């Protein structure tokens, strides 16, 4: 079979990596479309949580403001900045691959990973803080009643907060895992000016996760910011 479709490739054109594609263009188009379709599933995945957020915020606007004021918006802002910069370094890594600057690919990837890890470390301290303040809903820990009559609804706010940021943080961890793969491949000069699609797809994922946070930050942290800094 292999003779059938290795036919008539012009000189200098690379054959597709996998046998079932006719040519590299078909393979790359497929991979690109596959990535976008995957991102659509991700949008729907987070979409259900955004729906839940919208419903409860409309039902209990005051409780949401109260509860939101207990989040540290300054740390949230720092993390927003960290993620935006990590998206920049991610884009620069792809650019470096396109222009054949192999060491740049490695360093920009490392930088992206460092920013991603920074985000998670900050998130970890935020979570710990919430845990010690009794703001983390759990089976045995009941929620602190600092919110007075809003306490039950504030619990819902924090449930959504942990579900959404937790799911987002999980995507960050997966992203760091994929970037580790990128790093290994980049060290072997796998990404070249005519083979960078995989890296570009990793970039799409990373930007998507970043974009989710861009929505989460104002929705969760800034509702009660006018109350002053909580902790």
């Amino acid at each position: 079979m292999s003779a059938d479709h290795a036919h008539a490739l012009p000189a200098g054109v690379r054959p597709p990596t996998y046998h079932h594609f006719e040519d590299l263009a078909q393979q790359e188009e497929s991979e690109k479309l596959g990535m976008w379709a995957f991102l659509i599933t991700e949008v729907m995945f987070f979409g259900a949580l955004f729906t839940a957020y919208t419903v409860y915020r409309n039902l209990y606007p005051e409780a949401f403001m109260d509860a939101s004021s207990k989040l540290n918006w300054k740390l949230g802002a720092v993390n927003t900045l960290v993620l935006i910069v990590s998206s920049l370094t991610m884009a620069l890594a792809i650019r470096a691959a396109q222009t054949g600057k192999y060491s740049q690919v490695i360093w920009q990837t490392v930088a992206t990973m460092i920013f991603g890890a920074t985000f998670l470390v900050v998130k970890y301290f935020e979570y710990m803080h919430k845990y010690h303040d009794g703001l983390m809903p759990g089976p045995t820990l009941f929620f602190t009643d600092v919110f007075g009559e809003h306490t039950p609804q504030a619990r819902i706010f924090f449930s959504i907060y942990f579900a959404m940021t937790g799911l987002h943080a999980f995507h960050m961890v997966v992203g760091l895992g994929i970037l580790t793969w990128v790093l290994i491949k980049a060290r072997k000069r796998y990404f070249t000016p005519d083979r960078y699609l995989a890296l570009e797809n990793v970039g799409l994922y990373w930007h998507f996760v970043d974009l989710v946070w861009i929505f989460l930050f104002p929705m969760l942290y800034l509702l009660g910011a006018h109350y002053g800094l909580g902790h």
Partner: protein
Amino acid sequence: MTGSTDMGSMATTTGHAAAEAPRETYLTNGYGWKSWFLTVDHKRIAILYLISVTFFFLIGGLFAVLMRLELATPRADVVDAETYNRLFTMHGVVMIFFFLVPSIPAVLGNFLVPIMIGARDLAFPKINLLSWYIYVVGGIFTLIVAVSGGVDTGWTFYTPYSSTYSNSQVALTAVGVFITGFSSILTGLNFIVTIHKMRAPGLTWFRLPLFIWAQYATALIMVLGTPVLATTIFLVALERIFRIGIFDPTIGGDPVLFQHLFWFYSHPAVYIMILPGMGVISEVISAFSKKRVFGYSFVAFSSLAIAILGFMVWGHHMFTTGQSVYASMVFSVLTMLVAVPSAVKVFNWAATLYKGSIELTTPMLYALAFMGLFTIGGLTGVFLGIMAVDRHLHDTYFVVAHFHYVMVGSMVMAFLCGVHFWWPKMFGRMYPEFLGRFAAIIVFVGFNLTFLPQFVVGFQGMPRRYHVYPEEFGVMNLLSSAGASILGAGYILPMFYLAWSLKWGKKVGPNPWEAKGLEWQIESPPITHNFHGPVRVTEEAYAYGEEPTHGHATNTHGQKEATSVR
């Protein structure tokens, strides 16, 4: 559709020589367990899926048998209420998530989508294999649930019962369903990319077989809907394990929000289950009428219309929850709109039959049964979509009968129809035709005897999900249980004769049905790479030539095409 392949005379000669020697097919290309469990061949993965969905169909069927046994008499004499709750839940979970959703897409779709579009494989073969493994892992979770006491929430997992009060294995089941969802997402993603990017030269969208259109519409729903179910189930698990309170009304959580999120997936999921079946029926009706499907583009677009409208009707499951009356009115109207594309399909199939040269083979019998039963199932759905009628019928056996007419009467019929139709292509051997027709009739009779009485008792007010009932519903329930035993026999029969035919069935050539379509122009069973050379398609789908009243002239034409390909 008739395609012609661009093979040189050399290749054709090789093809003929190979036909005399034992030919290498996708089935003989490797025998060890690794050649199956690590395969990336879409046809082998389809066979893996065929075996696993059949296994889960038997498990789900076993639960149904126990339920019908209990319901044969008005008293509780086989199981108690608790056990009965677990039986119907497990029946629903297994049949929906582990049989109906993957059945046609993952078995027939996997096998046929690349072949029908003239490709060597799906776009992402490894992801295809991964989807099977994910399905198996999800299935193992569900089996663990079954042996460790089961789950009693109903397959709908309604909160706050599922999240707070149930004492059964809700969290484990949730994990199983959550995992299996990803298998469905990956299959859908693979189909979308494959159908967009892998079509052979000349195979434009409007030359595609309608089976492909149906798979495409299904894949859209899988990709857009399933993630929402995943999140919803994830929230139920969080609620159950960490008591986060999101669906807990005692602290202001909204249990109806769960129903919105759940049905946002689960109503479109009904179309995940039925659309691929409609694709099968289009192929079979055309092949055994020897006519082009009437109104091809209407049938093609009706699949997309069903997929799109399917996302806008979920609220009709919640007419009785206190949802806004105005929302209910909108949902009710949209629900009735779904009947339009569904009717387009049924009418167009009927028009295809008109003046066709009809052969009543086994697949055709199933296809005709599908048309009748789907009409009943679909129209009773319109009853339920009317708000006032639904007040009376909500949560009665009328609903049970309605969705079994669609899920079993239509979808399982379509699955059996497709399995019989493409069986010679998959294994190169024919099933015994007489037994096939016999089983098809048994299934049809058994099915109607099981579910027709349920419309009656439902209308009389018998609620679903109870293991005991008043004496007056006794006769109808006994009929239903009797029908179920006939239906069961009808399902067991094909398992035996299909397995028998693997070894002893009559060997067939590439095109035993003299049907059109790329899959009938390659060998049975196909080689690993499906086609010997590049494929170029020059004609529309179902090119059966002139009027079929001209006898077999068109068939000769078809054979001539097939010969030139080999």
